[in-house]
């Protein structure tokens, strides 16, 4: 009789140990999973933010080059540089798009290239700062730089 009571007590102890062990394992696993997901989300956000920074930098370089080309008497900027800077903007935008998809602003990118390079070989330069070409260029540039997909968010 005494032997049976001890066995039952031991059995109950084993069962509670197993239940507690399993419960602890499940809770720890969930915690690790949540922590892993948060770390991944954080890393992804940081990547997006770095890409946004690079995109703004590329757009700024392009904008400065365009203004130099069209407004300075002896601008060191050449037409093929403008094309190359424009392409870098596209690549930078594509990188952001890859990490955090949005509709690529193809029409606006086309407008930027148009205002930057249309008849650039033959048009009269320098242009006054309030010229229609530069106004249209700035308008298109603002559309991209102020767009939601280039705003950082946590």
């Amino acid at each position, binding site marked *: 009789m005494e032997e049976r009571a001890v066995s039952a007590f031991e059995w109950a102890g084993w069962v509670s140990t197993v239940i507690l062990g399993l419960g602890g394992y499940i809770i720890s696993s969930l915690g690790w999973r949540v922590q892993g997901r948060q770390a991944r989300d954080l890393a992804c956000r940081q990547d997006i933010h770095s890409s946004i920074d690079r995109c703004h930098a590329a757009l700024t370089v392009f904008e400065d080059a365009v203004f130099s080309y069209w407004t300075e008497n002896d601008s060191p900027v050449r*037409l*093929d540089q403008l*094309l*190359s800077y*424009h*392409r870098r903007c*596209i690549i930078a935008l594509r990188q952001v798009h890859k990490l955090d998809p949005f509709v*690529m*602003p*193809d*029409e606006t*990118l*086309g*407008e930027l*290239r*148009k205002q*930057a*390079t*249309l*008849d*650039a*070989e*033959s048009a009269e330069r320098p242009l006054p700062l309030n010229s229609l070409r530069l106004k249209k260029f700035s308008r298109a540039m603002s559309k991209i730089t102020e767009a939601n997909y280039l705003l950082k968010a946590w």
Partner: protein
Amino acid sequence: MKVIRVLDFSEFPGPRHEHIGPFSGQRFREEVLLPAIKEHGINNISIDLDGTAGYGSSFLEEAFGGLIRAGVPYSDIISLSDRIISDEDPSLISEVRSYIKEEGLKHAS
């Protein structure tokens, strides 16, 4: 479907007119596009813009807007713009369309 690769014309597409610089949009239109349209029919050609060093807008305007000035019907050129391949830079397609539309409007008025 005849695919015209601009890369076969030049890796460095040039300015609007040949007297400004080599591999111009004018030359591409006159020596590549118009003969291809004549030979294959405009509905049987597509144009691949990928692989070059980049396009100045003058080249694009002269090559494609210039088709309207050369007498190719607007509706045919707009449908051709649907068959432009530009995986590297899809903004080229919308820019080309804008030149076709602008030139089409000029000719309509």
